[in-house]
């Protein structure tokens, strides 16, 4: 029986609640957004006591469904001022799923004169809220080591780093990876790490020792679906096995990670380069997934068992797509960072015109250690570059700039940790790529207009994962759509946004999208596992649309209007080479997404 754990940080008390019947089908994003919408006043300040920090494992977390161990965290975002859900892999969702916890709701905050830092430890039949002042003010690589030394159950850990403890706006929520070698499993976006920091919490530690897997209501249907989905994922050239029967590389994600996209999006002329000034450059190959793959093979050969680079690495237990990696140092074979994702390599690389893989990986490691969202951090560094504070392409200067954030007395450090909007405005930049205060990710909305519609209209602020319409859209370059039925960008984006909201609630990784959208059996596998688990039938689009409605309603009450569903001005009137297109989706079409 799933339960809700409610923690009150005002007096460090906790209580268990039964899952209300009306919330029976809600998990992951559906759960976090519902709780935030029902319990948080949209007009209140996100860093004061009335905001809540909500954690929910996806519905199927802890079960045998493939790649279903994703975690959602939510609250009112300090960065956007609206509702927020951020999503990550790591260990915590699986641990909470097995503990039978559908959600943790953290409310209140310690009184002003309490300067202690706390951590929450959740295990079978026991919840502790402990003073952990020694966890605060240290880098996250040291913190996760320390926690695994103190707890021998290989616990899941999520929490906030130095940046969130100082309440800066670009504070992500970190999570440890399966091996606990890297605090890299980030629910990064929207500054939710600062919400945890405002409640004086550093870490939430989950131990599922002695717990069994959650039982599906309809075992047979669940199992039928699971087998279908496993097959669809394994057979697909994007999500499939590492090698084919001849030993040649097969599955794109296992071999090259998400950074398989660096070269492809560059070739499509949709890779934002130099703060969204051009859509293509010569540096992409140097920081691409293929480059990492080659470097891993090279260091494996050179250092043998001592080599720490890898690809085809799962980000959470039970993931069969395994798109994660570890980038080795060419000189030592030791891991610099695990993983280097596409969005990160883009933000800290292409967007800053940094084409040195080691510099990019080092910047990523610094973000992980400090507790920064990498997409926002890369865009923020680009603001410093645009303002002429440092030069585009200067990786070493970018590293020094990011290191400023360790120093509590550095104003530059505070600025670099505050996101692109704050930094850009403070530095007098007039090309600030944000929607609702959140930076754009790695697809330029001018040649890839459908993703532009998603950036503009998702309740989350600019977010590629909210409605991932890339493949369907990149064809529309240069406006040569000739389909007599006219696929409207609005319909496309809405459908993708709703399906995404469902997937973000199920616990499945969004990357199952390849296998479910290209393979009807895969889609059936997804719905049958969810329906089999719940013992009731849920309609994908209705479920997803309901989540979106809740989120939009919250934002409306927080003061958002349709004028907030727009891209920054420069996308409309600066053409992006090489396709030389501006964003030309009319406002009426943007407004039609949510009707």
């Amino acid at each position, binding site marked *: 029986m799933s339960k809700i754990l409610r923690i009150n940080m005002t007096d460090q008390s906790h209580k268990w609640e039964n899952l209300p019947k009306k919330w029976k089908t809600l998990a992951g994003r559906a759960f976090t957004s519902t709780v935030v919408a029902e319990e948080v006043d949209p007009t209140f300040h996100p860093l004061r006591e009335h905001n809540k920090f909500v954690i929910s494992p996806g519905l199927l977390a802890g079960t045998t469904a493939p790649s279903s161990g994703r975690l959602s965290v939510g609250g009112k975002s300090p960065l956007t001022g609206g509702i927020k859900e951020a999503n990550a892999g790591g260990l915590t969702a699986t641990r909470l799923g097995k503990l039978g916890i559908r959600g943790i709701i953290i409310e209140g905050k310690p009184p002003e004169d309490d300067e202690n830092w706390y951590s929450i430890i959740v295990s079978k039949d026991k919840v502790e809220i402990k003073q952990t002042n020694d966890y605060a003010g240290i880098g996250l690589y040291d913190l996760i080591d320390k926690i695994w030394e103190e707890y021998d159950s290989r616990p899941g850990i999520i929490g906030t780093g130095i940046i969130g403890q100082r309440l800066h706006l670009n504070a992500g929520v970190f999570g440890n990876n399966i091996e606990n070698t890297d605090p890299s499993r980030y629910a990064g976006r929207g500054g939710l790490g600062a919400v945890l920091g405002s409640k004086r919490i550093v870490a939430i530690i989950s131990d599922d020792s002695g717990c069994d897997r959650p039982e599906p209501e309809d075992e047979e249907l669940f199992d039928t679906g699971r087998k279908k989905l496993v097959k669809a994922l394994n057979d697909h050239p994007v999500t*499939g096995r590492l090698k084919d029967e001849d030993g040649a590389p097969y599955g794109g994600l296992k071999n090259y990670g998400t950074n*398989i996209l660096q*070269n492809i999006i560059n070739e*499509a002329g949709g890779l934002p380069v130099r703060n969204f000034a051009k859509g293509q450059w010569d540096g992409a190959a*140097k920081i691409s997934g293929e480059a990492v793959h080659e470097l891993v093979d090279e260091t494996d050969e050179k250092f043998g068992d001592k080599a720490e680079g890898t690809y085809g690495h799962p980000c959470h237990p039970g993931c069969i797509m395994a798109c994660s990696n570890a980038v080795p140092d060419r000189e030592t074979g030791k891991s610099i960072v695990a993983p280097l994702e596409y969005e990160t390599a883009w933000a800290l690389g292409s967007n800053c015109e940094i084409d040195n893989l080691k510099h990019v990986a080092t910047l990523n490691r610094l973000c992980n250690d400090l507790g920064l969202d990498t997409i926002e951090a890369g865009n923020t560094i680009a603001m410093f570059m645009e303002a002429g504070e440092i030069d585009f392409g200067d990786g070493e200067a970018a590293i020094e700039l990011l290191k400023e954030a360790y120093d509590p007395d550095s104003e530059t450090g505070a600025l670099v940790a505050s996101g692109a909007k704050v930094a850009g405005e403070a530095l007098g930049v007039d090309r600030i790529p944000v929607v609702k205060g959140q930076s754009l990710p790695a697809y330029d909305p001018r040649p890839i207009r459908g993703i532009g519609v998603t950036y503009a209209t998702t309740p989350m602020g600019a977010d590629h994962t909210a409605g991932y319409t*890339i493949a369907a859209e*990149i064809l529309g370059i240069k406006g040569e759509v000739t389909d007599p*039925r006219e696929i409207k960008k609005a319909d496309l984006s809405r459908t993708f946004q709703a399906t995404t909201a469902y997937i973000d609630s199920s616990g499945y990784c969004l990357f199952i999208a*390849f296998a479910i959208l290209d393979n009807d059996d895969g889609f059936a596998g997804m719905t049958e596992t969810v329906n089999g688990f719940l013992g009731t039938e849920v309609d994908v689009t209705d479920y997803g649309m309901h989540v979106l409605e809740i989120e939009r309603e919250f934002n409306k009450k927080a003061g958002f209007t349709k004028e907030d569903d727009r891209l920054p001005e420069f996308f409309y009137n600066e053409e992006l080479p090489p*396709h030389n297109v501006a964003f030309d989706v009319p406002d009426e079409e943007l407004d039609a997404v949510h009707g």
Partner: protein
Amino acid sequence: MVDDARANENTILQLEHKTGETFADFLERLGVDEDDVGDCFLNGKLVKPSDEIPDDVRIGLFPFNMRLLCGGQHLKGHGYTQSDVDVDYY
């Protein structure tokens, strides 16, 4: 196809233009099986087998397992990543 090619550099092959050559013909000229390609580009736009290749263009070749990462392969119309093209939208 290119000597000393490395994954961390652009692999560039300069070829003569042939009048009237389609992308399918072009793959044949290179000796590349159509089952082995994914999303490929002609001057940054997804290319279809029947597209004629003009002079002085940039072609981006990607293998079958490298493609724009998301569902909706059937929308692409080129047939390389999804055999059952429901509707050719473009």
